[in-house]
């Protein structure tokens, strides 16, 4: 059966590429001044002040190159994000993603299952409760990243926005934290795809998905029951 609409699949992969370039170039920009404090001040909340990000995690080659990529790719990210959000709103997919009553209880059950505290995979629809939380937060963190990014791009021309976020120094910090959250969500997402539901890769490429290979059908935890269930001999 079809699991993901073409628009969702295309925007997913465009997002993956755009986000990778945004994060890589953003880290290269950060390396030009890997700190948050205003000159002559100290900053409370960043323990790695003056420690650059390893260069091979960055993109753009040098500050100007990274800035040029960052300020070009931001449009791809924003337009692609708007297409995705507009589509899931009009087409109804948002219903599979917004938190429902009891989402945290259900998420806790998923965590218990993954930690072997529970034998059977909780019942789920298209996504389990942890996935719903992750896929719901991703666009929200994305919006935070974009808004804080605009605030540090134009701290004078759009100073009300920058002031609202606590001024340039704090807006830059929120921008950085949004990036950390996006990276954390992405790492969790990719880890779970490969260790729990590698069959879902197909659903994000061709759209097709086999329910009999779903994690629920396989009772799959990370690294456990990765292979399809052998049908019991009758």
């Amino acid at each position, binding site marked *: 059966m079809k699991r993901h609409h073409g628009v969702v699949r295309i925007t997913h992969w465009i997002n993956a590429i755009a986000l*990778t*370039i945004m994060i*890589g170039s953003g880290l*290269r*920009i*950060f390396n*030009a*001044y890997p*700190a948050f404090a*205003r*000159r*002559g*001040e100290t900053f409370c909340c960043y323990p790695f002040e003056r420690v650059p990000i390893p*260069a*091979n*995690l*960055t*993109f*753009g*080659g*040098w*500050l*100007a*190159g990274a*800035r*040029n*990529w960052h*300020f*070009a790719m931001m*449009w791809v990210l924003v337009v692609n994000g708007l297409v995705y959000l507009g589509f899931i709103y009009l087409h109804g997919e948002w219903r599979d993603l917004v938190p429902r009553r009891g989402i945290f209880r259900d998420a806790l059950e998923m965590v218990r299952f993954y930690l072997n505290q529970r034998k059977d995979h909780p019942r789920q629809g298209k996504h389990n409760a942890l996935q719903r939380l992750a896929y719901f937060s991703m666009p929200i963190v994305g919006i935070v990243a974009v808004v804080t990014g605009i605030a540090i791009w*134009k*701290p*004078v*021309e*759009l*100073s009300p926005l920058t*002031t609202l976020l606590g*001024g*340039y*120094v704090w807006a*830059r910090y929120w921008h950085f934290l949004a990036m950390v959250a996006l990276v954390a969500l992405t790492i969790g997402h990719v880890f779970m795809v490969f260790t729990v539901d*590698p*069959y879902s*890769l*197909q659903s994000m*490429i*061709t759209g097709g998905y*086999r329910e009999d*290979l779903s994690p629920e059908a396989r009772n799959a935890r990370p690294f456990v029951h990765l292979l*399809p269930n052998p*049908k019991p001999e*009758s």
Partner: protein
Amino acid sequence: MSGHRDSHRAERLGIDRRRFLEASAGAAGALFLAACDSMGPKSAAKLLKFAEAKNETLERVLLRHSSMDVPRAGAKAAGGSFPSYFVSRHVPVWDETARGAWRLEVGGMVKAPLSLSLTDLAALPRIGYKLDHFCVEGWTAVATRTGVRLREIAKLAGVDPAAKYVDFQSFDDDYHESWDVESAMHPQTLIVYAQDGHYLNAAWGAPARVYSPTKLGYKNTKYLTRIMFMPVRNGGYWSDRGYEWYGGV
């Protein structure tokens, strides 16, 4: 029953093949990532230039002479922590014996070219602002800048309305940066000769520099010698080397 199981296996094989292809795609992606810290594909240069031009259009729309920089309440002045920056090998100092007294030339598309001494500058309507400095590297610093609004000087010189660009030239080697005239006429665009209540020292661009919070640090030429009003843009030291020409804040 067994027929069903056979087709099932075949389907599974099909999936394996697909998964192999997907894994290869993943490996290609990893290779792409391994090419990091690169400038990216050369073919992208045109697209990046295109994006920069579009961004400039938007930045020009956003520029308001009424949007003023006001440093955050409680922000400490950087004082001695204010970085010093120049492109010459040594701190540029105006050599009076070789070049005569320093003067600021205002020329190009003007009715009355000016040649201002430091005393002349100091005699013009003085204005001081506590301002943020936004460096392209991402740091900020607060300092009080004292000087003359460039729009006052432009009025004195009688700038031709057809002059759409201004070039700020210096004696720091070949350092210069050209601007759009709208940013140059912003009320917080100053020809600065004092910082934090003292005449500029050599490390901060003495005898005079341009400073505007509407432009990134590198657009604000120090060690100023000449302000040229022009019909066309004239690039700049860093904008010719890949940084955005507009560099708006």
